[in-house]
């Protein structure tokens, strides 16, 4: 790391997760979920969950098309949390089996891309 903050002030605790979970597209987030280990998911979930509401509230104060790189990075991490929370809160021990089916799915469009291209 260069020492520069990848994330907005106040969200430094999530810096160590940016490498794995700051992901550009919905389909890549979905894939990262099924590639991850239970320990990686649990650690990320535990660190990010308490910051989720505050993170979204912070980002909501800035017009979406003016986000700087740290803001975009925070959004990407929170969007990954949406996927990972399903593995942790819902699937639990079944996630490994669930991942086998999951690999057959492709997310071909998300509202994120609709917003940037449309």
């Amino acid at each position: 790391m260069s020492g520069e903050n990848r994330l907005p002030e106040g969200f430094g605790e999530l810096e160590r997760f940016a490498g794995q979970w700051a992901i550009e597209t919905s389909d890549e987030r979905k894939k990262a979920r099924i590639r991850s280990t239970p320990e990686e998911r649990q650690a990320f979930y535990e660190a990010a969950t308490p910051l989720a509401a505050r993170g979204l509230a912070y980002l909501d104060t800035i017009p979406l098309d003016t986000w700087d790189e740290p803001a975009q990075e925070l959004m990407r991490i929170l969007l990954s949390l949406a996927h990972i929370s399903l593995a942790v809160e819902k699937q639990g021990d079944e996630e490994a089996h669930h991942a086998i089916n999951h690999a057959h799915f492709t997310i071909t469009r998300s509202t994120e891309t609709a917003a940037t291209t449309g």
Partner: protein
Amino acid sequence: MSDIDVRPPRKTETNGSVEYVPVTKEDVAFVGTGPVPTKPYVDEQWYEDEKEAIFRRVWLHVGRIDEVANPGDFIVREIEAVGVSLLIVRGNDGNLRAFHNVCMHRGTELVCATEGTARSFSCPYHKWTYANTGELRGVPDNGNFFDLDKTKFPLMEVALDVCAGFVFVNLDRHPKQTLREYLGTWADSLEGLNIDVSDVFSEYVYDVDANWKVAYDNFQEIYHGRFVHPRSIGRSTMAPENPFGYPTKYTFREENLHRSKTLWNNPHFTPDGPIEALASELTRAGMAKGPVSGAKRPSTEHYYIFPNITVLSSPLYTFTQTIWPLGPARCRSVIRMYWTGADKNASTRFAREYRMAALLDIHSEDRDIIEAAQKGLSSRALDTVLFQVHEVTCRHFAAAVDRYVTDYRAEVAAKRSGEAL
């Protein structure tokens, strides 16, 4: 005047939530009670006949009006089962049309792109050029054709109509019914969703090694929910008073092609974790502002538009699943979730991402069980299968498919005997 029956018409409102009143055997016995043949799910000739009898004759949902909103906007849709490629384009005159994606010169596929915007389309082979309204505009070295009258060779048009923002086509050169006639009162149901104002959707796709009807049936019945979806759906629709999460109502008549059911949502459901709670709160807030919403009613409506569409509208979201046959035992499922307006802020974006991922989890849980169902059927061990009360939707669907294939076979047989005379 309504041409649909409501069985049973019983629903009591208590404190804004719907009390569960079970549908009974007597309510649904009019559709039949006996075993149902497995042949339609495994037989290759049956599949061949379905393609002609159904997919080349009925109205098929191929897209959304917002995909072709402006003059020149086009999408190309493949109907793999029948090997047809369609060019759906809004002309510069503002009208939306569907054409066979085929050049009138020698039948070459005209457009390779899957979507875009164009004033005209040129065939890559000999550069015959068509306006986005279909007229043939340019033929290189025109003089070497034999009395070619360009006005007689516009692109070959396919019947197209729109309901609730859903674009439908009919491959029959002379459709026997208009889209309105075909949909009947379900047109009103779809329009009642206010989904025509949706201009944004999320989409995911998956293939399954199963006959398209085996996959479709999975999404018609709730009986499996308790066993296949205890984690993803769980207590949201299951509770001690309704342990299987059964629907409260089915809506169809025996002779209908389409059907619907009303799902019961557990009024005492609490989220499984803090992120589900956050996402639900943000979704509700977003839905309250957007018109694509079932938020004003506590129930979830699930419509089945023949042959291959499901439309589900819940208090939190509306989505369609369209299941396309790819072969006798293979199909593709396309899921779209509908929203109004581009993401307004981080909270909207997060809520929409969560909803898509959560829905994908439910469909993911279904995938291997659908393949297991097909594998067992394909072994031909069973000649018939059994449907209980809450699989009446599958039974009703099987009857509709059977009518189409039987009528088609009778028509072919009559034509053959006519030729033999």
